[in-house]
């Protein structure tokens, strides 16, 4: 446990370092992801991620690609990425919830 959730490049690098091959690098979002459910679930994310800037420790997750979003959340769920806040949140997300969140955030705009 050394860093909070890093920016996306760092997250990907950490994933690789952690041996991410076992963690769903081949994951793809469910085709029938429930975007409305994803929007509902996103209320939990917004508390910390809603005002992120480019230099924030807590990264902006709006507009993230679905596959990347799924990959990172699954890595937190597997505790292959280090932040305990994100681990605690991700551990109770099933694949369906992660897919729904990814489907929502890929097009979501940061709140203004």
């Amino acid at each position, binding site marked *: *446990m*050394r*860093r*909070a959730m890093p920016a996306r490049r760092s997250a990907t690098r950490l994933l690789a370092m952690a041996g991410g091959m076992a963690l769903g690098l081949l994951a793809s979002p469910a085709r029938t992801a*429930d975007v*409305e*459910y994803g929007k*509902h*679930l996103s*209320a*939990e994310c*917004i*508390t*910390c*991620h*809603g*005002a*992120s800037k480019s230099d*924030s*420790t*807590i990264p902006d997750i709006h507009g993230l690609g679905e596959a990347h979003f799924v990959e990172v959340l699954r890595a937190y769920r597997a505790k292959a990425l280090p*932040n*305990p*806040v994100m*681990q*605690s*949140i991700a*551990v*109770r997300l*099933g694949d*369906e*919830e992660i897919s*729904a969140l990814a489907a929502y955030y890929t097009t979501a705009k940061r*709140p203004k």
Partner: protein
Amino acid sequence: MTNITRRHFGIMAGASLSALGLPILSAPSLAQGKPRVVVIGGGPGGATAARYIAKESNGAIDVTLIEPLKTFTTCFFSNLYVGGFRDYKSLTHNYDKVRKGGVKVVHSMAASIDRDKKQVVLAGGGRVPYDRLLVAPGIDIKFDSVPGYSEKAAEVMPHAWKPGAQTQLLVKKLNALKDGDQIVMIAPPNPYRCPPGPYERVSMFAHVLKKKGFKKSRIVILDPKPAFSKQGVFTEGWEKHYPGMIEWQDPKIHGGIKGVDAKTGEVKTDFTNYKPALVNVIPAQMAGKIARDAGLANQSGFCPIDAASMKSTVDPNIFVVGDASIAGEMPKSAFSANSQAKVAAMVIRAELTKSRAFPARYSNTCWSLIAPDDNIKVGASYEPVDGAIKASNSFVSQRNESADLRKQNYKESVDWYQGITTDIFG
């Protein structure tokens, strides 16, 4: 509840809210116009709920927020103001964006709740009708829980446990101390707002004294509890950054807190009489007066709620969120209030507009600053289990963590403050 999937709750939403264990109430007649939600209290719970109901209902619900203050100074992060890490202005927020988000903001004191007529009575006598009411009044201080303490005594011995003038008074007194002066804090009994807060505050006291180069000043914490939040990492940090400066006494050591005398400045325990230069008394707490007067609180002084919805167990038209509620294993914190408000907002919308309802899920993290760039955290996820809100996947900072990690925690906490205040106030 943990394994309920989208398909499960899709069915639940399609069927009824009773699947979530919620009583079914008739929706207000459309002939009466838009359904009306009134929110009492414009803090982390109330303002979040008001904004989310207005935003997510796209104007289908009439939302009124009743808050006497035109600006809101957050209690969370006020310790960083005490320590000189933030200025007071940076903790103060207005309601302009709450208004722009479609919420009618009424700057008036809510005097009482007429539950029979489903109306909130304003201090000026006006009445605001509601179909659903969300009550988020925060805490009131139980002044008489510390013998000799009173609202008047707080002008000399500040509690600074509600944001505003009390916090500024505490800082003024802290900054006037001379080397050798003593600080005594009387810590609160459980349950109270912000479990790690008193100990973070002591850390900030010590930081200010250390920064001034004081060698002789000491801080004594008189605690009615045998243990406190993040105790191991707090005490490790105190030994590291402020060796010999902070003394924590549990009841076995002080023998009982006998009381304070604001006129003489004395603090008495069973074993010792103190006459410190600064006394910070944080008494026991209870739900805000309006909630207690409306009969929403039980003998504990706080308000019982349904774990799946934050609905009052006393009145099915009323929801209670934040520090005033009895939220099971969730601590009383702004993060908790914000999280609870979103669950209540979702259930209220579902009841009033037949929108989809989803299973409740809550979360909380509390960050505490011990010294510059040395920040610790504790948190968990929460959900309803057998009628109570239970914690899962909890975590807490550990002893001997790296300086890099603690610094990262601090940065994270600063970014979180920006995030949550944007979520609350827009």
